[in-house]
């Protein structure tokens, strides 16, 4: 090869080398340029400019420095660079809504951002210094920032007990518990109760195949003949806990055939006293008398009935038990009698108290329910394709298991289904790759998934086994909030150490008291040392409050102290012995140390009592809330029998500090002087209704 050829070639090589070097240099220059024009630097400059134009510049720029800012809490695993752009979160002068984001101050909350960081509550990517990366789901970060409407979801990660600052979370948890989600799913912080749906072993005794067929189509009782819902239930009360399964007629026919085919011990018709039957059988007002008794017993405290008021149908009554408007068309008369006599014989875990019935009452109420609480059109439209065949029963059996019915309902001899649905105890921490979006068109992240799946399970998966729930307005959001709070143990170790466990107190009553307590299900409405319902007064300190004879009388004839209440203590027909045991126990055990019943009180003089009357009526105007006799307000309890009802020491302590005894009472906390307290107490103990208790016992007969 000639030398000049070589020279030519090396020239060409040199040219290529030069050009590629220049290109390489340009590429190298892009990197620092990108750094220079990064988003966070822009926001830093903007903040500086904004602060510069305000009167409090010095304060706003006190901590300003041109680099990246971050909140670093190693024990919480928090490295949040959000404050690089959100510069003003701790500046009280930037709270105004006119301050442009990202510079506005954070609203005042119990946790300081400097101590907790941002992502502990808001999620999102704290490491990021780019707007999109920090807030959205990206390829390298799945948990986007929480929309404000779900922000309470993160409260629940640590606060497993409900807190007043997070009502949506508390509501969501309550709805999840009410709707028995625990039947199919493992959930964080919710234990499986002893009973979810009723035991269906003996359903044959209770109702007809036609009713089951209708119920399975849409599990609500308040439907008219055309299947239209006249009262939705969930508009003013909670949706029945049973959700709607997507079943066709064949499936419903099979399931109803299977359920009605269960072998069960048929109920012997109850033999009423022949004298009672003879006396009442022909009475024209039998049903009306039954209705009166039904009302007197205050069944409505737990059960609601549809009532037409002013042309509008409304449900009136409590929601502890099922709504009963058309129950006469559902249950069989013999079953009803046996249920009323002893609900636990049919449902051992049922919440219905065992009333003490006289034959007469039972006869009347039974007739009332079976004659008046009916709808002749209820089952008119039910057309069951054919008589139950063996193959129907078999496919019903299969369906029962396929649909997960056994998750909530027990049938003797069949295996209970557990964990039928997926484990949701860490649902709030699930990554996008673990979610099945199917063909649904929606943003690929957890929140829209939860919203869509809970509202309509088939929206993301056409073959979903999950049934359809109905939610009151806003409850869907609450449920999503609660689901987002379930993050299992996947939270960082730092957070895990902060979890405030939900300690639910158990109250175990034993002995004779325990038997009566269990029989009348006192805990369904009353609270005992933190355990039990909230419908009725907390009885934890009842022994300090009420005098034992009064409790005994009250149990035998519960007359309400607050006449405006819709929900009242039912008339259980407690026997003398039971009343004695219950009152003894309450008086001796359910006490508070704040009230010393054994302390010696000097006798009150009549002067004190009249001074107290003066204070009651003139100085403090107590009658604006309390009634004595027929005069006074209805906000507080009736004090006409206060002398028999309340312990002297309790009245004294109550006047000193009512909230110390009952934390959420609305009784005003007044600074009475010692003389005033004595005078008021002296007056109140003189208020006694003598002999009225016995005289007003309704004519219920005795057992």
């Amino acid at each position: 090869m000639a030398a000049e050829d070589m020279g030519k070639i090396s020239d060409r090589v040199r040219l290529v080398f030069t050009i590629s070097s220049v290109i390489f240099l340009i590429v190298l220059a892009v990197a620092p340029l990108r750094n220079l024009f990064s988003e966070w630097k822009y926001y830093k400059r903007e903040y500086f400019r904004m602060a510069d134009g305000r009167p409090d510049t010095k304060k706003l720029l006190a901590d300003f420095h041109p680099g990246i800012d971050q909140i670093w809490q190693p024990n919480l695993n928090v490295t949040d660079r959000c404050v690089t752009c959100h510069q003003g979160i701790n500046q009280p002068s930037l709270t105004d809504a006119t301050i442009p984001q990202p510079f506005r101050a954070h609203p005042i909350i119990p946790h300081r951002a400097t101590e907790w960081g941002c992502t502990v509550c808001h999620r999102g990517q704290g490491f990021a210094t780019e707007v999109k990366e920090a807030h959205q789901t990206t390829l390298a970060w799945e948990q986007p920032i929480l929309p404000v409407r779900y922000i309470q979801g993160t409260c629940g990660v640590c606060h497993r007990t409900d807190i007043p600052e997070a009502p949506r979370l508390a509501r969501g948890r309550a709805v999840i518990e009410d709707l028995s989600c625990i039947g199919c799913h493992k959930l964080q912080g919710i234990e499986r109760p002893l009973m979810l749906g009723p035991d269906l072993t003996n359903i044959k005794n209770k109702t007809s195949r036609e009713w089951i067929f209708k119920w399975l189509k849409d599990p609500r009782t308040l439907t008219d003949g055309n299947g239209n819902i006249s009262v939705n239930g969930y508009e003013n009360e909670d949706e029945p806990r049973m959700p709607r399964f997507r079943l066709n007629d064949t499936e419903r026919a099979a399931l109803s055939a299977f359920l009605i085919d269960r072998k069960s011990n048929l109920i012997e018709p109850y033999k009423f006293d022949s004298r009672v039957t003879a006396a009442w059988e022909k009475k024209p007002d039998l049903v009306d008398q039954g209705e009166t008794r039904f009302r007197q017993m205050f069944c409505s405290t737990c059960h609601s009935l549809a009532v037409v008021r002013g042309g509008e149908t409304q449900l009136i009554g409590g929601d502890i038990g099922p709504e009963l408007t058309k129950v006469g068309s559902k249950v069989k008369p013999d079953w009803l009698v046996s249920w009323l006599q002893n609900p636990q014989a049919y449902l051992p875990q049922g919440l219905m108290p065992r009333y003490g019935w006289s034959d007469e009452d039972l006869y009347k109420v039974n007739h009332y329910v079976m004659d008046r609480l009916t709808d002749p059109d209820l089952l008119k439209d039910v057309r069951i394709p054919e008589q139950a065949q063996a193959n129907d029963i078999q496919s019903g059996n299969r369906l029962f298991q396929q649909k997960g019915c056994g998750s909530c309902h027990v049938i003797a001899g069949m295996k209970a289904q557990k964990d039928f649905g997926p484990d949701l105890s860490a649902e709030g921490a699930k990554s996008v790759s673990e979610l099945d979006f199917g063909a649904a068109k929606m943003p690929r992240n957890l929140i829209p998934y939860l919203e869509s799946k809970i509202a309509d399970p088939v929206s993301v998966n056409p073959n979903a086994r999950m049934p359809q729930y109905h939610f009151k307005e806003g409850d869907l959001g609450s449920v999503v909030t609660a689901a987002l709070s379930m993050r299992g143990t996947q939270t960082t170790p730092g957070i895990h150490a902060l979890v405030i466990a939900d300690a639910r107190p158990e109250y175990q009553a034993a002995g004779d008291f325990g038997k009566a307590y269990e029989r009348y299900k006192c805990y369904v409405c009353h609270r005992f040392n933190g355990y039990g319902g909230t419908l009725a007064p907390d009885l934890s300190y009842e022994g300090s409050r009420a005098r034992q004879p009064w409790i005994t009388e009250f149990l035998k004839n519960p007359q309400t102290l607050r006449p405006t209440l819709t929900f009242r203590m039912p008339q259980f027909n407690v026997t003398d012995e039971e009343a004695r045991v219950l009152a003894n126990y309450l008086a001796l055990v359910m006490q508070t140390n704040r009230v010393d019943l054994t302390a010696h009180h000097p006798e009150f003089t009549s002067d004190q009592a009249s001074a107290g009357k003066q204070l009651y009526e003139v100085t403090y105007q107590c009658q604006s809330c309390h009634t004595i006799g027929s005069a006074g307000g209805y906000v507080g309890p009736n004090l006409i029998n206060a002398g028999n009802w309340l312990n002297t020491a309790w009245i004294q302590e109550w006047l000193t500090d009512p909230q110390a005894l009952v934390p959420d009472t609305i009784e005003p906390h007044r600074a009475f002087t010692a003389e005033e307290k004595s005078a008021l107490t002296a007056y109140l103990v003189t208020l006694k209704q003598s002999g009225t208790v016995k005289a007003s016992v309704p004519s219920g007969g005795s057992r």
Partner: protein
Amino acid sequence: MSASLQSTLKGFCNNRVWRSIFRRAPARTNRTRSIAIFGNLFLHALPVKVREKSLRVRATYYLGSFSFFLFVVLTLTGIMLMFYYHPAAPKAYNDMKDLRFVVSEGIFLRNLHRLAAQAMVLAVFWHMFHVFYRGGYKPPHEFNWVIGVVLLLLTLFLSYTGYLLPWDQLAFWAITVGTNIISYIPILGKPTRFLLLGGHEIGENALLRFFVLHCVILPLAMIVLIALHFWRIQKDGGLTIRESDERK
């Protein structure tokens, strides 16, 4: 080059400092040039003389040199990345975030390392194909061909071990798949997988092992073999020259 520049250079090369470093005056003759090459730790592996034909672009496309250049880039960027990296879960992934969001030019460093790694795999393959089709595996180059194949495997293995280090989903699943494939090797498969992962599943042990392999063992092996590879080119009589090269 102008005469004055040449005389300046000459003066620069002819003082005590130069001599203390290079032990001899600038080489003027072929003999002194040869001695200079032989006497230099870094250059002695290279041939003293090469044929013009083998310097032509078409003879090699400089693929071997390019691969080596990429290896140098990878070593330099890799060392810099090591300043920011902890082979521990979950810190490893957080370090990726730091590199992206707070370290000055961190994203550039990472991308350069990643792109250079991908380019190196391509370059090494291309180099191998090129050598193969030129018959570079034939005697007397057989052993150097074998070293080259080992270098290719080392390159791939470096690439693979580096893949786990970001500790993200991609890394985790890629290594899951890869090590599961290994476990299908009869008899040796399962123990090899165990050895690689330091356990039965991909956890911190695996991360640490991959880190040590990626940053210490494999690069060292690579450096030794690259040196041997270069040295053998010289000892085996230079690059393969084909008849078609001769004709031109």
